[in-house]
């Protein structure tokens, strides 16, 4: 009875004692990533990016610290898409003498993880979240070479104006805001930025994640004569939205759906109805930055498809951390943090990286479009694999 309680308490102590420091001569990095649960597919891309980056780094002799070449050792733990487990596993990593954390996937897990990094005073480099709010809390250990909501909002309009002459622009905007912090943040920024680029928000409505019925929003946007639809749906919500726009014969000239169309499953489940969807996934394998095409070729060889959209940013995270460790010249976490804050890297797979005081980075924001069942890069124009397809063909004529 109570004896077993005693026995297991001893086990806790044994476990605690077991997590001692590893061998010298390596740089340890730790990542807690959702590999199972609701975020598993995104987490898998992030993991691939980290692993390929560490392989390449070690193949080139690792990281130079104080005149010595150190191998990089990456420990990856799964958090089951559960923020409590993210926290407990990040605490476990902190005991293993890691030099820096690499982030996972999904805003809520990042929000929990960034706070743990801040508490433990360990630099944290994360991608795959655009939520700007996390960066506005005064955290000093959080770094993210990934486009954030303000850039996404501006580049949406900049891309449209860059391609379209003034008389053809879809000036009447409908925003379908998801009832989450990121959904509200994006809706607000899209709305604020609309006027300076010559657009007008004619309809804005909120919906709850996981909703089955968007017909009310769609009909009201249609009645308001919207020509451009902006939203940040999850994959199931995005598919619901497109199907109901088709059923209700609402034909906007363009629609930007951030997040839902990132995965290859978009084209598979929607077929021709998936085409014309614009997305802003944070990266695309066709960008002409040093190392991007090699990375994509390697990915093609290993997985039979070009590098997925999150593989590049995750790869860049490792590049950023390795560079900071090299410049810090030590494995002291405080010095690595300072070095990361003063990052000025020209050659990463996401382009030049520098950090603002809030940990965000002015990285290149890409716009991708589904065309004939493929994700084509349309913006920035100098990297475009295809020009913007506009206006979208009405559903009935596809």
């Amino acid at each position, binding site marked *: 009875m109570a004896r077993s309680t005693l026995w297991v308490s001893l086990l806790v102590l044994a476990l605690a004692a077991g997590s001692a420091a590893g061998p010298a001569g390596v740089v340890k990095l730790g990542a807690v990533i959702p590999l199972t649960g609701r975020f598993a597919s995104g987490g898998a891309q992030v993991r691939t990016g980290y692993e390929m980056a560490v392989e390449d780094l070690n193949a080139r002799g690792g990281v130079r610290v104080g005149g010595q070449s150190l191998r990089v050792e990456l420990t990856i733990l799964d958090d089951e898409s559960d923020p409590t487990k993210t926290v407990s596993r990040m605490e476990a990593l902190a005991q293993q003498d890691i030099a820096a954390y690499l982030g996972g996937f999904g805003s809520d897990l990042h929000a929990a993880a960034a706070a743990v990094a801040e508490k433990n005073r360990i630099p944290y480099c994360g991608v795959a979240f655009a939520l700007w709010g996390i960066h506005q809390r005064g955290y000093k250990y959080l770094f993210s070479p990934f486009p954030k909501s303000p850039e996404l909002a501006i580049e949406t309009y900049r891309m449209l104006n860059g391609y379209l002459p003034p008389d053809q622009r879809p000036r009447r905007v409908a925003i379908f805001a998801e009832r989450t*912090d990121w959904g509200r943040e994006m809706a607000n920024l899209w709305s604020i930025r609309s006027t300076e680029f010559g657009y007008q928000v004619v309809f804005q409505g909120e919906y709850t994640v996981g909703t089955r019925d968007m017909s009310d929003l769609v009909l009201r946007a249609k009645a308001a004569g919207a020509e451009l639809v902006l939203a940040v749906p999850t994959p199931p919500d995005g598919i619901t939205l497109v199907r109901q726009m088709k059923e209700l014969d609402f034909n906007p000239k363009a629609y930007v759906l951030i997040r839902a169309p990132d995965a290859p499953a978009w084209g598979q489940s929607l077929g021709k109805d998936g085409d014309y969807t614009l997305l802003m996934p944070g990266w695309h394998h066709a960008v002409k930055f040093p190392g991007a095409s090699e990375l994509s070729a390697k990915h093609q060889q290993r997985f039979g498809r070009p590098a997925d959209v999150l593989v590049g940013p995750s790869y860049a995270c490792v590049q950023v951390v390795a560079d900071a460790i090299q410049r810090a010249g030590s494995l002291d976490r405080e010095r690595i943090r300072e070095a990361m804050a003063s990052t000025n890297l020209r050659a990463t797979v996401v382009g030049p990286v520098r950090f603002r005081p809030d940990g965000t980075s002015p990285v290149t924001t890409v716009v991708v479009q589904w065309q004939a069942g493929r994700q084509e890069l349309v913006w920035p124009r100098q990297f475009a694999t295809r020009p913007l397809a506009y206006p979208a063909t009405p559903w009935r004529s596809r």
Partner: protein
Amino acid sequence: MNPSVAAAAAVALAAALPWVAGDAAVNWGLLVLLQVTVAQSWNLLGGYGGQVNLGHAAFFGIGALVTRGLWVQGTPVVGALVAGSAAAAVAGLVVGLPSLRLRGPYFAIGTLAMAEILRIVVGTTLPEVSALPSDLITGYRLVPRYYLALALAVLSTAVVWRVSCSRFGMGLVAIREDEWVAETVGVDTYRHKLAALLLSAALAGAAGGAFGYYHLSFYPQFVFSPVWTFDAVLMVFLGGIGTVWGPPVGATFFVLLREALALRLTELHVLVFGAVFVVVVLTLPGGLVDVARVLRAMRVRRPQPA
């Protein structure tokens, strides 16, 4: 060893943990202690009273939100915790008053429905992440949170122990075994069930409050997740339902095995954990606290060498 001596030793060991171990182990210890309270509170009503509560997460969540809200606004944490616990008890009253009058599965259905309704309402009305501001993070210390969780685990176990050897506890057990008979012999079944539910909800709310005080950042909806109900049920069954020591043993085994596997097996750990879990439940239907009895029975059955 005498059970009370062993219990005292376990508490002493748990109290010593922050002095000998780092943050990771203290964090594991904290999760174990938190789950001890949640499991123990479910055990009180489910294990002794036989009332299956499938909405335990609602009490946990209410406690967490109320406590965190008050604490972040400057209320001392103990006061906030008491308020959170009281709020959870009130919710218990609201759901218990109608549903405990009925027999059969209505209580289980009612609690499940309440928890899901609350989860959706909270997700819709409070969609933004609840993160501690950076000044609170700078002053954040794990150790006081750990001792709070320890105090609650000891309290909840003491409450269950006290109930188990009281007239009230016997009444609950009588209800669990046969509610009609219990009523016939003079047990006021409705009052017994309602009192047990209030106690259970208050303890779960206190555990939620400790979580709200402990966790750096979470979405309000998360504390209403069914995980908090079903993990508690699993731990109670794993350790031994309707026993005083089952939930602590079950919670310790559950949390530590899960974390130990997660550290070693990356994404396979969920599979292995599930398999180990099934094996334990199949071989020890009375729970882990039954292991000594089962071993003794095996020893007796084995033929003696001549």
